């Protein structure tokens, strides 16, 4: 059965292509280290599952050293222009290949989940996304009659612009795993145990929701924070002692955690990557735009759980 190996092979081939076009076409002083960086990431995708944990650890450190060396970066801007004219010429049809990616990804996910035996159900979404990206690239190449290396040169332009941010989500996910293994969750949980709520239900609900948000800010992921907070406060206190509706305590607690996700650089794929993608001057610009909504939503979740979750 097809699984993530296919996605990793595609990603490995893409990053290898980025390394090659960088080595071939770039002559500026940052070209060489940038080619090395994309080559190392390609190596991780292509060989990561065979070289063992220790070698992967060394590879991760080498990738970080190269990416943080200051010797990598985008090529000097070469403004070829003509995008306005192209936009008028191709018109709204330009949206179609961009929308084809999610459309194919969705269709594939539904197909692979309803017809078992082709793609592993757990990997159906990512495999379909990979196939959607590939199909859409081919459509664009035929439509625009580009040269074979054009998708790689345009792709690497975006990748260079993203720079270190492209690796941040994966590294932070790894950090979250180390945090969990080192007992970060229980440490924060026991810290919250020292807070005196004076037996007030409202204070307990507020502490539970704020604890979910805080722990999510630290770990970058509400799914990592949930088991800790549910064990520390949700199950023993809010459900058992205060007789809260278990589903409400769980669901609204999780959503309080999502408020934390909106506030933390640890959730790099939602917060730091877009800032880099959109060339914002402030790397925390997206977090700043989200903060008022996130704080208001945290308050809303506390009130919703307090008023709806407990039968009185």
């Amino acid at each position, binding site marked *: 059965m097809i699984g993530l190996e296919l996605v990793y092979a595609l*990603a490995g081939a893409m990053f290898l292509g980025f390394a090659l076009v960088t080595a071939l076409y770039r002559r500026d002083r940052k070209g060489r280290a940038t080619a090395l960086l994309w080559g190392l990431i390609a190596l991780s995708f292509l060989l990561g599952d065979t070289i063992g944990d220790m070698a992967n*650890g060394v590879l991760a450190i080498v990738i*970080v050293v190269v990416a943080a060396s200051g010797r990598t970066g985008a090529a000097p801007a070469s403004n070829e222009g003509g995008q306005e004219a192209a936009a008028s010429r191709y018109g709204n049809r330009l949206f179609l290949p961009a929308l084809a990616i999610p459309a194919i990804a969705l269709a594939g996910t539904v197909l692979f989940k309803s017809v078992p035996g082709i793609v592993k159900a757990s990997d159906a979404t990512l495999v379909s996304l990979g196939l959607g990206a590939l199909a859409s690239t081919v459509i664009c190449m035929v439509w625009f009659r580009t040269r074979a290396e054009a998708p790689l040169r345009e792709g690497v332009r975006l990748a260079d612009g993203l720079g270190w941010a492209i690796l941040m989500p994966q590294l932070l996910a790894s950090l979250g795993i*180390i945090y969990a293994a080192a007992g970060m969750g229980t440490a924060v949980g026991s810290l919250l145990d020292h807070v005196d709520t004076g037996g007030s239900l409202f204070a307990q609900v507020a502490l539970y929701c704020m604890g979910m948000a805080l722990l999510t800010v630290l770990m970058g992921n509400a799914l990592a924070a*949930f088991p800790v907070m549910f064990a520390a406060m949700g199950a023993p206190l809010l459900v058992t002692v205060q007789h809260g509706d278990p589903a409400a305590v*769980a669901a609204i607690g999780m959503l309080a955690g999502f408020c934390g996700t909106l506030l933390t650089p640890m959730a790099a794929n939602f*917060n730091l990557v877009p800032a880099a993608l*959109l060339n914002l001057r402030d790397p925390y610009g997206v977090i700043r735009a989200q903060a008022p909504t996130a704080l208001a939503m945290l308050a809303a979740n506390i009130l919703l759980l307090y008023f709806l979750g407990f039968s009185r």
Partner: protein
Amino acid sequence: MLVLLAVVVLVAGLVARINPLAVVLASAATAGLAAGLPLLELLARFGAAFNANKFVTAVFLVIPTIGLLERHGLQERAKQLMRGLRGITLGRLLFAYLLARQLTSAVGLTQLGGQVTMVRPMLGPMAEAAAEQDGAQVDADRAKALAAATDNIGLFFGEDIFLAIGSILLMKGVMEGYGMKAEPFALSMWAVPTAVAALLIHGGRVLLLDRRRKSASGEAA
């Protein structure tokens, strides 16, 4: 408790503007050592975690297509489209997107949005053009940041209404560990009040952008 030092390292490093990748490595090392993991085991665990999370980076598979389309004018077309629409404002554009993103996420179509495939090539430029168009007090950076924020908020406070999402399955698993009966349907229904609150709070925020702008231009006139 020593493990909390890792958070201190992380925050201090980010505040000092040291390269974030290096800060993450330093924080991971601090956490591992504070928990008494031998150095080589820490290296192996980090390597295993890094390899197991490769799929996170796989979303960037879409960038060759996005790059090709941008070279052929996708961002400019998104802006042109806004200029052709009468009565479009930054607030209305983002409100409509928020609602659509929440509704599609609620029925499981989470992939219809996204920062790489939707916000950078389309929604971001549209927001920028809409803000430009009616003499906004919102600069281009702020308009684009709000577009990215709206995509995240619509996703987060929509997806939990769908039954088969990861967070629902996790909650079900954890609750059953405590011997509690956990119906995915009940969990998803409890996400509805929060989704409505998100629409009111964030939707209200983006619509207020228009009001501020109109009253400001009113004073000028």
